[in-house]
């Protein structure tokens, strides 16, 4: 019988658990832990949602003035290189 995980041990593995990069044995232990520990279930669930929300964010289009200056700087660079 393998020893049960503490909440602290669970937290330490949480990132790898959410990234699905753990091997089956430790994964099974974590899954068992969250079925028995409501607090860790909430932490895992809300951390997963945190990551999902950020992943879904598209970058804002870059402001026109920033874009203009970038393109001008590059044009200058290219012109200098092509001499």
């Amino acid at each position: 019988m393998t020893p049960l995980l503490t909440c602290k041990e669970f937290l330490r593995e949480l990132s790898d658990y959410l990234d699905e990069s753990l091997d089956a044995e430790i994964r099974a232990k974590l899954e068992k832990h969250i079925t028995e520990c409501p607090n860790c279930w909430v932490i895992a669930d809300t951390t997963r949602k945190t990551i999902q929300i950020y992943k879904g964010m598209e970058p804002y289009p870059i402001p026109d003035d920033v874009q203009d200056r970038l393109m001008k700087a590059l044009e200058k660079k290219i012109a200098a290189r092509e001499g």
Partner: protein
Amino acid sequence: MAVPTTPTGIDEATLVAQAREGDTQAFAELVRRYEGKIFRLAQHVTNNREDAEDVLQETFMKAYEHLDQFQGNSKFYTWIVRIAVNQALMKLRRRKADKSVSMDETIDTGEDTIVREIAAWGEDPEQRFSRQELGEILDTAIQSLEPPYRSVFVLRDIDDLSTEETAEALNLSVPAVKSRLLRARLQLREKLSRYFKRKGDDAFAYL
């Protein structure tokens, strides 16, 4: 360079090959493809709009200059991310020298990860907010992280780089990336809970 004529459907490797042969339109297309992400990354790392614009320019200038050094064994995007991160960190260091910004990166290496808020969120809790409100909430939360956590989170979870790519871009070990990522995620979770927790779970929701 000013007139976009390159069709956008071309794959990255082809564009890079064309750009290396001197096709400036192909390079311009690469810039257009990634400028938004690089600018966002630069803003997140520097936390300063002016610095971020400098970083954006410097990144693509350097990429253009050193295109012949791009090996093609990593993705082009990963390569420019590395340039951008270096430029952004240089800005941060310069500000540190100016003493205008505290960069005392007291990385707590203890394994304890602090969890204060344990309240469940509803399904799709972000739906409660407008796109703009949500953007502000997410940006503010990221900005409040210490720079070492912020950079790791942005590269790993927003820009979707692998752990190894993030380690390479930030010149960190894989375990360091992992431990910072965990802390960043838990800290953000904590900050977002304020907005996203289920209404009924908030004892003062009726106020």
